[in-house]
């Protein structure tokens, strides 16, 4: 029997929430960027604790790693340091209104979600796709069902995704004078 991870999850969510509030109150973009990295790292650990290591690995590498470095470069190019005030609680009313609206809408949809690992969730119902994936993956000799779903069953999606990544690279080069590498 594994120990109950709910206390750890609660602490991690507290860290994530604290980091999010700190990002929102930071006046200096550089401070906000670094805090945003901490926010992503907290989320990544939460995914791992909730047994979604594939998502956790992606969150850690993309959210905490690459996004932070891209933001750092963008900050170095654009925003001058803002002076002495590092944090401030003065938000614009419009930003508060939009933020509150998003929280209310997302919060209202929360009770409709099944609890984590609920075996009666619609995704695990008889005839749902999850059961088929779990049973059929062995045919290909692939142990990680997530990979099998991405490449085998939804290969067209993944092919489109990688084309989008490539197109994004082309767009970056087109917009920002591509005589780089």
């Amino acid at each position, binding site marked *: 029997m594994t120990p109950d991870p709910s206390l750890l999850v609660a602490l991690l969510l507290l860290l994530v929430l604290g980091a999010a509030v700190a990002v929102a109150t930071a006046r200096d973009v550089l401070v906000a960027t670094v805090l945003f990295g901490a926010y992503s790292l907290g989320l990544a650990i939460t995914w791992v604790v909730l047994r979604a*290591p*594939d998502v956790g*690995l*992606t969150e850690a*590498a*993309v959210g905490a*790693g*690459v996004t932070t*470095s*891209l933001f750092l*470069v*963008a900050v*170095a*190019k*654009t925003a001058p340091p803002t002076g002495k005030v590092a944090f401030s609680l003065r938000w614009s009313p419009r930003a508060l209104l939009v933020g509150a609206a998003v929280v209310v809408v997302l919060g209202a949809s929360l009770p409709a979600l099944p609890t984590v690992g609920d075996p009666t969730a619609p995704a695990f119902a008889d005839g749902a796709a999850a059961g088929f994936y779990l049973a059929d993956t062995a*045919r*290909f*000799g*692939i*142990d*990680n069902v*997530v*990979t*099998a779903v*991405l*490449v*085998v069953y939804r*290969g*067209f999606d*993944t*092919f489109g995704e*990688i*084309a989008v*990544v*490539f197109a*994004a*690279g082309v767009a*970056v*080069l087109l917009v*920002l*004078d*591509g005589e*780089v*590498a």
Partner: protein
Amino acid sequence: MPGERPYTDSVVVTQTVRAVVPFVVTYGLFTMLHGTKSVGGGFQGGVVVASGVVTLAFAFGVTQTLAALAPGVLRAVAAGGLLLFAAVAAASLALGGAFLDAGTYARLPVTGAAVYAVELVEIGIGLTVASVISLAFFTLARAEP
């Protein structure tokens, strides 16, 4: 930042990065290839490899890191990864299956042929992701403010 301080090497940073980056890149390749066995895949592995490249750029300077890469190499790799994925997808057509159908490879008389096909796809994904992220980073870092 730009114009204020000239770029200076720190021995601690460059030596640490020199020691760490080979392991980061190796772990990225491991993540790409290990996606069929356990946690991982081309997207994650590609990002890990790219983070190794970005770490190099932070430690040794963007211009210096770029100079170590042959011109056009990142673009060629970005296109090559996509083409590798397309080639694996189209090869199943040539073998009498449907486009992108891994089942075609599973029917081949080679043990684990489908796994190899999926791993080739993951390598293609990883190459494109790693080079596009590196390209985006270098292009942003070199852009005029």
